[in-house]
């Protein structure tokens, strides 16, 4: 075999309307290597990979596979070229079996009957060869995320991928599961296959990649041999300036209990128990962080406390009075503010103008209304004040919210919830999809709130964020609180707890 690079990108450029997601990208991935790509959220990593996989079309630029320039019009072409991809957001049919998902698009014949047999055989082979075991007849919706991801990998392998792209595969995995994944990737590399691994967790990069490329704001800013670089250098490249990986904060002065959760059980829409008999307190003047891998019940817990999801049993007390029956509107009255995990679908109405979102949920308040009508002057004035105070750009309350960038969108939500000066603040993924500048800003605001004697409950899948902000850390696994730790607890111990291996 020639040692042509597996993938070569020349001048790839991609715009999404106003957003310049990829700017003239050049990249070379050597055959038989694990190539890491890091970058802030929104840097353009997924976009770039989706272009290689033929999911998006580049506006301009050339793709070469094994030295051959090829045009990848759709994923079919990519698959034909031996490229497989595990997407950041899984591309599985929930009510299909593993087998059906694997076969989809590679059924081998107009009738299913024949394909099924061979597919089973092939799955067996892959299982034994790479230790990718999963029951072929299980329904996807009944599999834990870890296994779902495995199905995605199987899909790629089944199609005989020589080049495997994984887009932030570890976001949904415990450290232990991640390590298992990395072992598999190692095997693949030794088989001569090429792996492209996207993540923004530096630790993982250092752990298994041979080469690493850094993206920032849609540009490819650097490529390094992993052995010749350091975490600090990468972090700096990623962000464009020195980063203080820790936020300064003084000692917490916890006062009396504000929020207390008692034997809370919450089910999701499918009726599956996601939060199982959980109890904890949050005191005024402290930040309680809930660590855990995505999908272990944190979302449901937040929604239950915020009054969006009715608990199955148990009780929630705010200032001693039960609130598990109250709806979000009522809770705001009681001084409980909520920064939701998903700003695009919950925190904001993207089609609204900025000023409308700046009062979403509070628009019934007397100061914003005259009788049954809205008091637009008051609202716009108020919105403008927040825009200045939080440096939201562009400073235009009449602009459609969708046209603000993620970080600025997040600032709109944060401003709205914090400026109401609540007693209790519950926060989900405060900095997801937000650039570092905004991250620091938002972190500082949160600390200020604490020092102002507010009670704060913080949920984040970013362990670093949890450790940076929290005064106490609760670890959640499979709907249970598996334990409490102080921020100085080691990543190792927390990681084990997140994996359900009690500490």
């Amino acid at each position: 075999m020639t040692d042509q690079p597996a993938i070569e990108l020349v001048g790839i450029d991609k715009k999404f309307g106003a957003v310049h997601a990829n700017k003239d990208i050049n990249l070379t991935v050597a055959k038989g290597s694990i190539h890491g790509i890091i970058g802030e959220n929104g840097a353009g990593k997924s976009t770039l990979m989706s272009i290689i996989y033929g999911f998006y079309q580049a506006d301009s630029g050339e793709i070469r596979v094994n030295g051959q320039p090829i045009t990848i019009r759709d994923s079919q072409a990519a698959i034909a070229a031996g490229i497989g991809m595990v997407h950041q957001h899984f591309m599985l049919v929930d009510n299909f079996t593993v087998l059906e998902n694997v076969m989809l698009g590679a059924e081998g014949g107009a009738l299913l009957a024949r394909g099924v047999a061979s597919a089973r055989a092939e799955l067996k082979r892959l299982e034994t060869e790479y230790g990718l075991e999963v029951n072929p007849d299980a329904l996807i919706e009944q599999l834990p995320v870890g296994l779902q991801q495995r199905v995605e990998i199987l899909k790629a392998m089944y199609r005989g991928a020589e080049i495997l792209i994984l887009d932030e595969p570890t976001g949904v995995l415990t450290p232990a599961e991640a390590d298992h994944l990395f072992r598999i990737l190692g095997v693949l590399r030794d088989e001569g296959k090429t792996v492209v691994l996207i993540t923004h967790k530096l630790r993982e990069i250092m752990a298994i990649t041979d080469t690493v490329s850094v993206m920032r704001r849609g540009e490819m800013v650097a490529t390094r041999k992993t052995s010749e670089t350091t975490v600090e250098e990468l972090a700096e490249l990623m962000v464009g300036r020195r980063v203080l990986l820790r936020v300064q904060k003084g000692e917490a002065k916890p006062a009396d209990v504000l929020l207390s959760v008692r034997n809370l059980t919450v089910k999701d829409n499918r009726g599956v128990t996601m939060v199982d008999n959980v109890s904890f307190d949050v005191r005024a003047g402290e930040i309680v962080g809930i660590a855990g891998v995505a999908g272990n019940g944190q979302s449901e817990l937040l929604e239950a406390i915020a009054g969006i999801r009715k608990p199955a049993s148990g009780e929630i007390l705010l200032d001693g009075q039960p609130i598990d029956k109250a709806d979000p509107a009522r809770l705001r009255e009681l001084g409980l503010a909520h920064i939701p995990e998903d700003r695009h679908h919950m925190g904001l109405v993207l089609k609204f103008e900025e000023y409308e979102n700046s009062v979403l949920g509070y628009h019934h308040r007397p100061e914003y209304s005259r009788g049954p009508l809205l008091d637009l002057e008051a609202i716009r004035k108020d919105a403008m004040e927040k825009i200045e105070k939080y440096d939201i750009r562009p400073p235009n309350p009449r602009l459609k919210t969708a046209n603000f960038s993620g970080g600025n969108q997040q600032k709109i939500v944060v401003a709205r919830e914090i400026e109401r000066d609540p007693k209790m603040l519950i926060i989900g993924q405060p900095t997801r999809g937000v650039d570092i500048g905004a991250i620091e800003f938002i972190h500082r605001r949160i600390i200020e709130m604490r020092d102002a004697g507010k009670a704060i409950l913080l949920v984040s899948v970013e362990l670093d964020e949890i450790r940076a902000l929290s005064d106490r850390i609760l670890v959640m696994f499979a709907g249970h609180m598996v334990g409490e730790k102080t921020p100085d607890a080691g990543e190792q111990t927390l990681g084990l707890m997140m994996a359900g291996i009690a500490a």
Partner: protein
Amino acid sequence: MSTASVTLPRWINYGLIPLLNLVVAFLISGFVVWLIGESPLAALSLLIEGAFGSGEGIGFTLYYATSFIFTGLSVAVAIHAGLFNIGSEGQAYIGGLGCALVALSLDKYVPWYVTMPIAVIGAGLFGAAWAFIPAFLQAKRGSHIVITTIMFNYIAAALMVYLLVHVLIVPGKMAPETRTFLEGGQLPKLGWIMSLFGAKLGAAPFNVSFIIALFAAWFVWVLVWRSKLGFDMRTLGISPTAADYAGTPRARIIIIAMLLSGALAGMMALNPVMGSSARLQVEFVGGAGFVGIAVSLMGRNHPLGIVFAAILFGVLYQGGDWISFEMPNITREMILVIQGLVILFAGALEYMFRPAMVLIYQQFKRA
């Protein structure tokens, strides 16, 4: 690159693009006319002549427009709450019952200006009541409101005929209709408005309900863009999850929105029942409820746009009658054809020309 997230100036979004859609709809209609073997241009000039040729023509145009304003608003209010109410037809039909009952019981005793407000309420209440069950089923049971409202159109038809044939009919009369209302149950015509422009209204039943319609349009504007309820409705309509987060009571908003929608549809009955025929007749709605869908979409669900779109359809109806009279080959259902095409191009295909627009627009900006 995708043009979807490029923002265009208002005059293109709300002016040029709807206009383009409309033009295409008309071109195809013209083709149909040609297919029948008549001259599209002749038809067009007849359309104009019929609709604007005389004070009477204009009167009829505005008379039809009045009904369409009501039904258009009815559809729009529901759409803003994310509901597609195809039941305006039936709600208007039942609204007619409410309006007629008021007229029948009061016309002997009081003058029209006393009857009217009560009739407005009666019609509104009955229309709202008819919208309630589908609303409730949607809110509490999640049953598809599009289908339920259609079903309720059929049920309304059966109910009304039963009442007209067996209860409200004047004994010994053939036609299933109520007795003619007396003065006190008839809405005065707006001849004076016409005479301001030196035109004569003639027999056209253009009446005061037109003014009520304009008032309703203003009311809807305030409701949707200036009131807290409207804010809740729009939040729910655009993003139900955001509504949950904001603590907007979904079920209640859905029901309120549908009640308002039904009430507006019901008030439409004033125009034909008290304003024109002065009696309740079988099938008096005559499809106005469905026209409301086209009107609302044409008008981008905005009251002002709806008023204009309603007048446009008034022109189609009046002019259409003229055409079908002069060109016996072209029946009045031609309007349904145009209606369908307008809904298709202004509604389902509203973005067909957008990418092109964006590119052209960007060319201009460069230059």
